[in-house]
């Protein structure tokens, strides 16, 4: 019984890992450079030093999913 539980746990963890890899791989392929995480604290510090801005930009539209992108 314990072994079965252990096996199920390992199988679930493996599946989760595969899913995460597939999703992140797809995202990378779809957005080609877009979607990189920003170090917000660093950006905010540079803004306070006058080296960057956080000025609202034009042509932004709220969407529900990643599928709305069509990067080559």
């Amino acid at each position, binding site marked *: 019984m314990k072994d079965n539980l252990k096996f199920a746990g390992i199988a679930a963890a493996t599946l989760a890992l595969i899913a995460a890899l597939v999703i992140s791989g797809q995202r990378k392929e779809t*957005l*080609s450079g877009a979607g990189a995480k920003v170090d*917000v604290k660093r950006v905010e510090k540079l803004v306070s030093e*006058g080296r*960057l801005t*956080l000025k609202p*930009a034009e*042509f*932004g539209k709220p969407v529900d999913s*990643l599928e709305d992108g069509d990067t080559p």
Partner: protein
Amino acid sequence: MSKRKYIKCELCPRNCVLGENERGGCRSRINYKGELVTLVYGKPCAVHKDPVEKKPMFHFLPGSHAFSIATAGCNLHCKFCQNWEISQINPEDARNQDLQPEKAVEYSKQAGCRSIAYTYSDPVIFYEYTYDTSVLARKAGIKNILVTAGFINEKPWRKLCAVTDGANIDIKAMSDDYYRELCGGQLEPVLKACKIANEMGVMVEVTNLIVPTQNDDPEMIKRLCEWTLKNLGPDCPLHFSRFFPLYQMRSLPPTPSETLVRARETALDQGLRYVYVGNVEVQDGANTYCPGCKKLLVSRQGYFVGEVNIEDGKCKFCGYKIKGVWS
């Protein structure tokens, strides 16, 4: 109602969809607290006074200077980029200075520049800064020049063209595969941008960087000439530019002069009237000749302009109208 998680940036054909705290493929626009923001408005990392010939713009106030600005980032990722030190880095990693639009216009006047060039990386990625500065520059009697790959969506492009006087647009190759594989872009939006700018009265000059073994096929060059002739007209200046091994294409040699000379001959044979060779000294490669009487109109050596025989936009000798912005 729950807040939407993603923002789509519709500035360029990448149409990036960004989750919170993510950046676009251009590096300069991010989703910050659910809002699309630009990191680089008024924060150029390069500011110079350049001869306008350096852009290159050869039919645009020859011998004048362009106050030239750029911010970090680019929406294309060309493996052969000649300005990769600023175009392929995040704005956080650049040495930015504060130069708001009002100051940019003021400094360009003080420096005796007749134009402001949005250049080096690509004005598409500092769109709002370019637009606001262009509006102020025009009011101050200073012209605006975009040096761009033209990879932008139609709506923002039309808005920007309305305040632009000249544009040097890169057509990197007449091949969508080339754009996709070497630049992370697409060909069609670029061609469309060229046509729109031309139709809107922007003085368009086209540059083609010839990269050995990648886009130096004579047939491809011929197609570029045919397309330019058909869509932008015989008076559209075309520049063939020499590649130097930089960034991710360091193993290739610089473009041989003969390749550039051959490309120029092809373009002239096709019927284009003003064809130039750049980044290399080639006899007559940078001079402008009158299509009417064949006499020398503008002599150039490097970025230095010698004689100019154009008066009121016409050849001084035969009166042939020369396309360009001359005053």
